């Protein structure tokens, strides 16, 4: 494979590339070895600090924490898809009294940081208005409001990206507004937007970790808890490493699914619109990060 950015390397260039590569690798390995050595030196890799993995109770604790993360993700994902669909429909409505408030809601929740939303739901409502929401629902509702708004923009962009001729043809055939939307525009829009929607779901999964800050007992919270247990030797680094691997694994599974879907769509009868998630997603919302 060759790139347009450089000539196909000849013998001299290959040798030079190898040197540069070797130097680069040496530098990175040096940094990693240094970090690992420092941790080793600080005793973070002594067997005692890894013993906790073998305790059955701690395994159950981690499984429970994993379930707390995954259940918050699942509920939030479903709710934000529904929220996004409802508000996208609202923004696309021809009636101004529906589209204006829908636009306001979507723009508002996209501009406010997710953590502030969660704080408002968890601390604000409780101490200000006396309405108590438990940590699970504070996280889930915050995720729903934020990611739902981002998804609403994604849906809307998808529907607007369907060529005009499609809806004109459908109207010409005598379909009603609702029918045009559900049987002509939406199927095509969902198809072109599916990769973006799935990558937004990865963001939902990652953002469940914010629950840690309001003490929702998910993975990161339990990591902090285990990491501060002195009778286990306060194994904060081992625990954090294990939790990082779990998070990255979960996200990679989701990313893998979205790759698979993308490939399926690319092989479909009609070429879907070019949906480079990196270009489309950030444009459709501030999300993706």
């Amino acid at each position, binding site marked *: 494979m060759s790139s347009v950015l450089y000539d196909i390397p000849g013998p001299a260039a290959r040798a030079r590339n190898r040197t540069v590569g070797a130097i680069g690798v040496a530098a990175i390995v040096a940094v990693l070895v240094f970090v690992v050595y420092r941790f080793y030196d600080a005793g973070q890799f002594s067997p005692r600090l890894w013993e906790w993995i073998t305790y059955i109770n701690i395994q159950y604790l981690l499984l429970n924490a994993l379930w707390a993360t995954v259940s918050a993700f699942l509920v939030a994902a479903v709710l934000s898809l529904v929220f996004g669909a409802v508000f996208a429909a609202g923004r696309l409505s021809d009636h101004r009294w529906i589209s204006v408030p829908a636009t306001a809601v979507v723009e508002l929740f996209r501009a406010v940081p997710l953590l502030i939303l969660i704080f408002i739901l968890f601390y604000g409502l409780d*101490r200000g208005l006396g309405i108590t929401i438990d940590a699970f629902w504070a996280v889930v509702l915050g995720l729903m409001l934020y990611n739902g708004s981002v998804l609403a923009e994604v849906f809307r962009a998808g529907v607007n990206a369907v060529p005009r001729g499609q809806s004109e043809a459908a109207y010409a055939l005598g379909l009603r507004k609702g029918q045009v939307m559900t049987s002509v525009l939406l199927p095509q829009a969902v198809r072109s937007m599916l990769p973006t929607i799935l990558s937004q779901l990865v963001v939902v999964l990652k953002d469940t970790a914010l629950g840690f800050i309001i003490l929702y007992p998910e993975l990161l919270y339990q990591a902090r808890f285990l990491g501060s247990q002195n009778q286990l030797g306060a194994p904060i680094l081992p625990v954090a490493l294990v939790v990082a691997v779990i998070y990255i694994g979960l996200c990679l599974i989701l990313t893998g699914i979205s790759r698979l879907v993308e490939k399926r769509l690319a092989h479909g009868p009609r070429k879907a619109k070019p949906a480079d998630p*990196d270009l489309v997603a950030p444009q459709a919302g501030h999300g993706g990060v």
Partner: protein
Amino acid sequence: MNVLLDNLDLYLRGFGGTLALFVVSAIGSLILGTIIAGMRVSPVPVLRGVGTLYVTVLRNTPLTLVLFFFAFAYPRLELVELSFYTLACIGLTLYTAAFVCEVVRSGINTVPVGQAEASRALGFSFTQTLGQVVLPQAVRAVVPPLTNVQIALLKNTTIAAGFAVVEAGGIYANLSERGYNVFVGLLWVALFFIILVVPLTILQRRLDQRWSAAR
């Protein structure tokens, strides 16, 4: 209104911290992200691999976990003592750079092939092709998504409040200590964030207009 006026010092300090975090991490992430994007399209296979690995790992790790590492695991290294503020800057920079890298890379792909081919025909090396011909055009093409990444960074700075950095996300805790209405206080915080995002959006639109005309 009283909540805001009585605690103006708190709000000023909080948003000062937020802006300081944002400016440092924004500049850092733009530089680091561009370098990694350069690595990912470079002729050296090893550097491409390292760049891909970096982006995959950082994009799939929650920012909270990245900051968690820096806040709790870094002090165990017993290296240089760094303040939480510095650590938060490093964490935010590393995390955001992965997203900047992806945006810049997709920008490089939008530059017409003829541009790179022409500069190669003129005998430009890879760094010259990328630095003088392709990147300047690529950056213009990706101003909107790049600004969106930076807006996301501005909002992400609030997460640092969970790790004892003085910034806007931590205002509620002080308000509650002083016995003010936390709900109203948080609504003010939300409002200020909306006000902060607006100029960035305007900048985004103006840069896009000016540069898309010059393209």
